[in-house]
């Protein structure tokens, strides 16, 4: 884990309200793995927003990192105003990455909305591990769909304006009904409601499933105890999302 003030290389709007921000940071780029995140100081020297904001690393190149985000509040609005020439104080890589190299053959990536963020980086790893990768992406409507750097993408939109008309879980179930997948493992990320449904769906179908959770964080490094996730069982009632997650096996946690 390092903390560094790094230069912003570029900021690009890639879909409706969706931005890709690229920063230079070779130290993190060299070690980060799919599912890990940065805690980013979006405002320097001002107390609003006060806290850092967590963002998955979406892609990593030799010496640069990409974040993928949309504007939901003050912090992301500020972030979207950054561009080449600006600097950003980042802390990372944080959290436990997805276990990409388990016992399975086909990775079923399931992303709802901004949940696609961690998957370009994960996809690269999966391919390195010679896994099959199939990706299921859900969005509200076609303008919100962004599927760059993903593999074998199946799209669902709530309004049917692109791909399957329905949500991404329905799309996945539909797909699994019509296709035989050998030794699958699901990797999911998205709104908690969707992850809950995904967790239930994967349990019913007997497919192992790993989720990347989202929630408020203050420190991002395990000192504030602000990010509890309820465990299914175990001696401790809560796990910390920032240091024991954000990726969890779906059977470990209560959503």
């Amino acid at each position, binding site marked *: *884990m*390092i*903390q560094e003030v790094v230069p912003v290389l570029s900021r690009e709007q890639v879909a409706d309200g969706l931005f890709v921000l690229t920063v230079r940071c070779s130290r993190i780029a060299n070690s980060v793995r799919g599912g890990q995140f940065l805690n980013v*100081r979006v405002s320097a020297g001002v*107390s*609003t*927003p*006060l*806290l*850092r904001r967590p963002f998955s690393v979406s892609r990593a190149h030799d010496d640069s990192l990409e974040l993928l985000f949309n504007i939901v509040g003050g912090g992301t609005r500020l972030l979207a105003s950054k561009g080449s020439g600006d600097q950003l*104080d980042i*802390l990372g890589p944080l959290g436990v990455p997805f276990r990409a190299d388990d016992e399975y053959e086909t990775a079923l990536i399931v992303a709802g909305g901004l949940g696609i963020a961690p998957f370009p980086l994960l996809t690269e790893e999966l391919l390195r591990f010679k896994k099959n990768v199939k990706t299921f992406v859900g969005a509200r409507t076609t303008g919100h769909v962004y599927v760059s750097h993903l593999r074998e993408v199946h799209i669902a939109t709530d309004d049917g304006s692109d791909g399957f008309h329905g949500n991404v879980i329905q799309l996945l179930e539909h797909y699994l009904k019509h296709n035989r997948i050998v030794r699958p493992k699901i990797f999911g990320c998205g709104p908690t409601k969707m992850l809950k449904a995904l967790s239930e769906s994967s349990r019913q179908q007997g497919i192992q499933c790993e989720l990347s959770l989202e*929630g*408020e*964080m*203050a*420190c991002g*490094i*395990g*000192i*504030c*105890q*602000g*990010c*509890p*996730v*309820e465990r299914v069982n175990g001696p*401790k*009632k*809560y796990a910390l999302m920032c240091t024991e997650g954000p990726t969890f096996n779906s059977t470990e946690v209560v959503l």
Partner: protein
Amino acid sequence: MSFSLRGVEFKNRVLVASGTFGYGDEVKDLVDVNKLGGIITKSLSAKPRDGNPPRRIVETASGLLNSIGLANIGVRAFIEEKLPYLNTLDTVVLANIAASSIQEYCDVLAALEEQQGIDGYEINVSCPNVKEGGLSFGTDCNAVKEITSRLRPLTQKPLIIKLTPNVTRISEFAQVVEAAGGDAVSVINTVIGMAVDITTRRPKLSSITGGLSGPAIKPIALAKVYEVSHAVRIPVIGVGGISSSSDAIEFLLAGATAVQVGTASFVDARTSLEVIDGIKKYAIDQGIADVGSLVGALDADISASVLQSWL
């Protein structure tokens, strides 16, 4: 920069606040903890505490509202898992203690007294007194007095009581601590606050209300430090919203012997080190040989103060 409390030497006047620096080991990649004046541990209770259900934190305007519920590993696990690391450090280590009965405070302190490596204690009295139906010890002068006098005989090390600002006259609490043999008071713990989610119509925090910290409360903390430092002779350790050396210097001038950096460590774990460097620089710029001479050096006529003012 240094000061001492009951024979314990602090290398400088900047400590990290309880609950905002873990047990010191989590941030060792980021911060040279040996440069700190002292580390105050997360509050320790007799048994491990799970803490409150989510949601535990809410950001507010220049503030942080938390209801961690004192999630901690308990004093036993602390001694086994955390103390060995803390023992390797060249800085003062204060154990912060929380409890739901006076006996529990005594038990935790006694357990820690048997160990090497704890230099002193800070007592968190912002805890529900189970005997009194959950009323906070910290808002009950008699309870604070009793906690202090029961703990005093159990240790020869510095005993610091951390006061809550959620009272009418915090100086009365500092006075009972002084009378009961406390070595210092930390001023302040968090301020009670609340936030509501207007979409779900539910409180944002699972515990409804929580504790407010961060820059938003700095003016409040400063006023409390000023009030307390004029009411007692024991040292006051200032805490609340400090994020820069100039904030820290405000507290020293208002009467704090030392300060703690809390929430600001979440924003930048190195804040406390920057505060130390900034105080040094200020002293040089202002031609001050001894930072201690800043303590309470506010140029003000107290008769113009708190109780006189019309709000």
